[in-house]
């Protein structure tokens, strides 16, 4: 069978809802897209540990401290599951980390924003994890087996992440005036970047069509974004915080909450390196990597000496 025949057979498997497994034949472009998507996702989890890790030591109660530490620990685990999934496609974790630290691989740009108060922990859990859950729920149906299975595991663990974030915000919003102000400030700063997390509008998204055809994605960027807005606006109303969008309105005809315009200049500026924390995030990961080298080497040296 020639490549054209193989591609047809491959697409037929996709259309029939079959899962593609690591040793199956797949078009080079499919393999490349999946490596890109999965590794970006893995990098996002690992870099994502940093903005929240920033507040573990200052968490204001023992319960919050434990919850936040458990959440960030989960994120390490998610990164690990995802790196494992990429490795099924023949790329090593070493290579993936190398790409990240060299600035050749991307991670979700939301993590280039700074966490400036305890309330940011609430905003991130509620909004950023809330957004991630929608994306991840969709990906449990992804055509590539290892990715879908990693996503099922991640989704189970992710549910408490969003709930604890929303709980933090609700408690703050019902608290002292200073706490309420802290929560509103966090919502003001994290709302728009979260909407940008879903990526550029459908018309401008380069990989969208091909990924939908291969059933890697099932919903477009705009669909996911709208789904998120519709879920989240009532939640903000429920706890008495204001979405920072003067043009936000409910459209009776469609049944959707419509937002004002998203500042895509900001999105591109941050993606391309102009966010507040881009440099700090990579420096932190580079330092952990460099400082850890002697440890990793020591463990291997020991294993070599004591191999039975």
């Amino acid at each position, binding site marked *: 069978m020639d490549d054209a025949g193989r591609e047809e057979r491959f697409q037929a498997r996709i259309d029939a809802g079959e899962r593609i*497994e690591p*040793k*199956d*034949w797949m078009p080079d472009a499919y393999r490349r897209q999946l490596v890109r998507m999965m590794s970006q996702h893995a990098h996002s989890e690992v870099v994502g540990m940093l903005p929240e890790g920033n507040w573990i030591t200052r968490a204001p109660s023992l319960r919050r401290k434990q919850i936040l530490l458990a959440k960030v620990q989960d994120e390490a*685990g998610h990164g*690990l*599951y995802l790196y*494992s999934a990429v*490795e099924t496609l023949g790329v*090593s*974790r*070493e*290579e993936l*980390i*190398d790409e990240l630290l060299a600035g050749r691989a991307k991670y979700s740009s939301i993590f280039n924003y700074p966490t400036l108060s305890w309330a940011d922990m609430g905003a991130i859990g509620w909004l950023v994890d809330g957004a991630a859950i929608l994306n991840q729920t969709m990906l449990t149906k992804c055509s590539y087996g290892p990715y879908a*299975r*990693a996503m099922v*595991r991640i989704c189970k*663990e992710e549910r408490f992440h969003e709930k604890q974030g929303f709980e933090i915000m609700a408690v703050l919003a019902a608290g002292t005036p200073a706490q309420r102000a802290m929560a509103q400030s966090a919502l003001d700063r994290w709302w728009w970047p979260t909407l940008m997390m879903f990526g550029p509008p459908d018309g401008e998204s380069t990989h969208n069509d091909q990924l939908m055809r291969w059933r890697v994605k099932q919903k477009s960027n705009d669909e996911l974004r709208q789904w998120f807005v519709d879920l989240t606006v009532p939640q903000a109303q429920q706890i008495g915080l204001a979405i920072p969008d003067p043009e936000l309105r409910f459209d009776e005809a469609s049944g959707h909450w419509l937002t004002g315009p998203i500042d895509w200049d900001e999105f591109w500026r941050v993606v391309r390196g102009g966010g507040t924390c881009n440099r700090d995030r990579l420096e932190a990961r580079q330092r952990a*990597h460099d400082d850890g*080298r002697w440890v*990793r*080497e020591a*463990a*291997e040296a*020991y*294993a070599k000496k*004591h191999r039975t």
Partner: protein
Amino acid sequence: MSAEQPDSQWPLWEVFVQEKTGDPHEHAGSLHAPDGELALQAARDVYARRGPVVSLWVVESEHIVSTTPADSPSFLEPGPEKIYRHPRFYTGPRSTKNTARKK
């Protein structure tokens, strides 16, 4: 990058988890470890911290011998051609009921 050895993230291991006694061990995923003892500890922290887990197996990925898609259909028999292996192939009187009276 210089010509030095690329940094190692340790060998890859596969993890199998048994949720309760009597269950088979199921593949949970993989992780990196320098040896079996640390692989077991990592497996416990990564794949068993939410429980329930009663047993963990870890094995270096390179030690797994597996079939490939090219192996089917010849290596892995696809359909129920040898249907005499299946109980439903058989007709005849149903098993007699155990009529032993309960004490």
